[in-house]
């Protein structure tokens, strides 16, 4: 066996990564790069007290009424997938962002950017899907816009929906309200939507199809708010915060809450529901379900005395049947810094659940 004469003392290192002067895909992933883009480009110029809270929705007061206001854009490919399409996704996504503020969603707008050559039949299908989703969610699409761009400039269809809802008196939900001792509740299995999409793209087949969990959550939220009033008659303060873990997955959501509330969060691996087939797909592709997008799930931070009651209410709702307490909010003493999310493995050891830099890249190693 040949021996090398390399001198370890002379080993060197590669060059540091220079800051990017262009947008990369990771900037849209919901992870650290997205957060940096907000922080470095938008917040300095747009800053105001409402925006700076960085909740899923903005809650503003107009004439004594608290109005929730949110916008979301949809660039999903493929446009049609098991469990939905870009249209139903666009309705559910914005309805959910409103619902996470405790609002009852009432009105939506719909903006379409179409590429020249896009099949009208597909557009009809998408519009029909939106109409069904909006009707089921009890919202009206009251205004919209359509633009067409030249062939090659638009990748089929891009959409935007903006929504308005009314926040009832006394409901105050925000990502900065979590406190040590609070419980972390997850409404159901993670990874379904992201894997349903990826499976289509990667040409994976399934014995039983993996279906996106895209759904409107405001009914579930109403049930939870009602249950929390039972616990504490004063306000619905028992629920501190609601978030839907979309792009960036459960990890991004928990990291955001921990950072904004200046707390730590500990979760238990064994408590997190993941469907077998989603697990199989993640193993095969080298992905971690914690970072995969969901479109019909929510995370709730609730006061410990209210956890059982709210969990029971969730389980009575079809969209919360698999709801589970997955962890606890902790303080920031010692090796638990503010904004740290850790997970206890089935072995009892602890690991950090980090905020991803950009898109999760499939592992080969």
């Amino acid at each position, binding site marked *: 066996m040949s*021996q090398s004469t390399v001198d*370890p003392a002379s080993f*060197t290192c590669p060059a540091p990564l220079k800051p990017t002067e262009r947008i990369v*895909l990771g900037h849209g992933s919901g992870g650290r790069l997205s957060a940096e883009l907000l922080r470095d480009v938008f917040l300095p110029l747009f800053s105001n007290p409402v925006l700076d809270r960085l909740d899923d929705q903005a809650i503003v007061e107009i004439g004594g009424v608290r109005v929730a206001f949110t916008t979301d854009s949809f660039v999903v490919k493929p446009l049609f997938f098991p469990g939905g399409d870009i249209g139903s996704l666009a309705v559910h996504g914005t309805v959910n962002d409103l619902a996470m503020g405790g609002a009852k969603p009432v009105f939506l707008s719909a903006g379409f950017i179409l590429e020249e050559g896009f099949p009208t039949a597909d557009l009809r299908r998408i519009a029909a899907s939106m109409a069904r989703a909006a009707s089921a969610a009890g919202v009206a699409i009251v205004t919209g816009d359509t633009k067409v761009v030249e062939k090659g400039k638009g990748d089929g269809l891009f959409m935007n929906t903006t929504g308005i809802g009314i926040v009832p008196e006394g409901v105050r939900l925000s990502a900065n309200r979590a406190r040590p001792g609070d419980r972390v509740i997850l409404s159901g299995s993670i990874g379904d939507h992201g894997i349903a999409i990826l499976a289509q793209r990667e040409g994976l087949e399934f014995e039983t199809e993996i279906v996106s969990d895209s759904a409107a959550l405001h009914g579930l939220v109403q049930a939870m708010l009602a249950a929390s009033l039972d616990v504490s008659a004063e306000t619905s303060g028992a629920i501190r915060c609601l978030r839907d873990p979309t792009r960036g997955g459960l990890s991004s959501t928990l990291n955001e809450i921990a950072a904004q509330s200046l707390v730590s969060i500990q979760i238990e691996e064994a408590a997190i529901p993941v469907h077998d087939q989603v697990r199989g797909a993640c193993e095969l592709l080298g992905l971690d379900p914690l970072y995969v997008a969901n479109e019909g799930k929510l995370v709730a931070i609730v006061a410990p005395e209210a956890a059982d009651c709210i969990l029971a209410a969730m389980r009575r709702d079809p969209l919360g049947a698999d709801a589970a307490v997955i962890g606890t909010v902790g303080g920031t003493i010692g090796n638990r810094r503010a904004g740290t999310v850790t997970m206890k493995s089935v072995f009892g*050891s602890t690991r950090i659940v980090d905020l991803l830099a950009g898109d999760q890249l499939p*592992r080969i*190693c």
Partner: protein
Amino acid sequence: MKYVDEYRDPQIALGIAQCIASRVTRPWVLMEVCGGQTHTLMRYGMEELLPKEVELVHGPGCPVCVTPLEMVDRAIRIASLPDVTFTSYGDMLRVPGSDSDLLQVKARGGDVRVVYSPMDAVNLARAHPDRRVAFFGVGFETTAPANAMAVWQARRMGLKNFSMLVSHVLVPPAMSLILSSPSNRVQGFIGPGHVCTVMGLEEYDDLASEFHVPIVVGGFEPVDLLEAILMLVAQLEEGRAEVENQYTRSVSYEGNPPAQRIMREVFEVSDRKWRGIGSIAESGLRLREEFAQFDAERVFDVEGLSAEEPKECISALVLQGLKKPVDCSAFGTRCTPMHPLGAPMVSTEGACAAYHQYRRHTAYVTVDC
């Protein structure tokens, strides 16, 4: 999931950990070479389960991290060409070259795509004869058969627009380097389970006897690694220095003959530069002369492209197991997965990145609360 879940069973894992604790009588330093094994150790926090006498240090088993700087620069140069579709495994896209990376090439309009298998790249070439398709062939011996087969099939199909940028590295020369170093602390190795699935165990016999060091070839699940550690500790306590196989459901002494045959037919052993370490003789693979038309370095005339590696970090010491990532003053501050200074922070398999992602809380002062 069969053959996965059973090897993550907590009772069994903790039981083996207890066996290790009762077996060990003095400190031992063990190294796992393979990045996939590093990943498992970090992800499950397995250091917490082991007695303090057993110290795990992490070797250069991340082929992404050790891909030389000039190879990344060559990939970037090729990917930037307008008629090229550049394909790669996901891990390589974020690796920084001298002043860019493949993700940025994509952002500037380059056709850079992540593929799951080298055959996906071959099929792309077949489907798009107007594009030149290049594949970034990085990896240890585990991935070499697939890459060899891709080139072989491309030739069979008579493809004129497919090429591979080959940067394969071999495990035994890296282990030899570490063991030859005067400051080496490693007393036992967890051998690379999937590399050995392909290559068998013969090369490791030579290492074990030359350096009198025990090598236990291990799998990738927590129970596999704990069992391998137990077997290593048993050997060390008894003064043995043999090659043993923990991963018997996958590894045999002779390895996989058809896989080895295709590797020999398409590749030959060559000297290879390892990023952060330097050139190691006969430590890599390159395409044989008769497959020259599939060699992306020649097709795109980038062989001459070389790069300067500036100095700063202690990655070499980490790769050798002489330092832990947390020993580095830049760890988590100037050097993070977002802004890596060194090779082990680049890929999710690298020791520093794995530490940063899963275990950096152990670097902070612990206060009971």
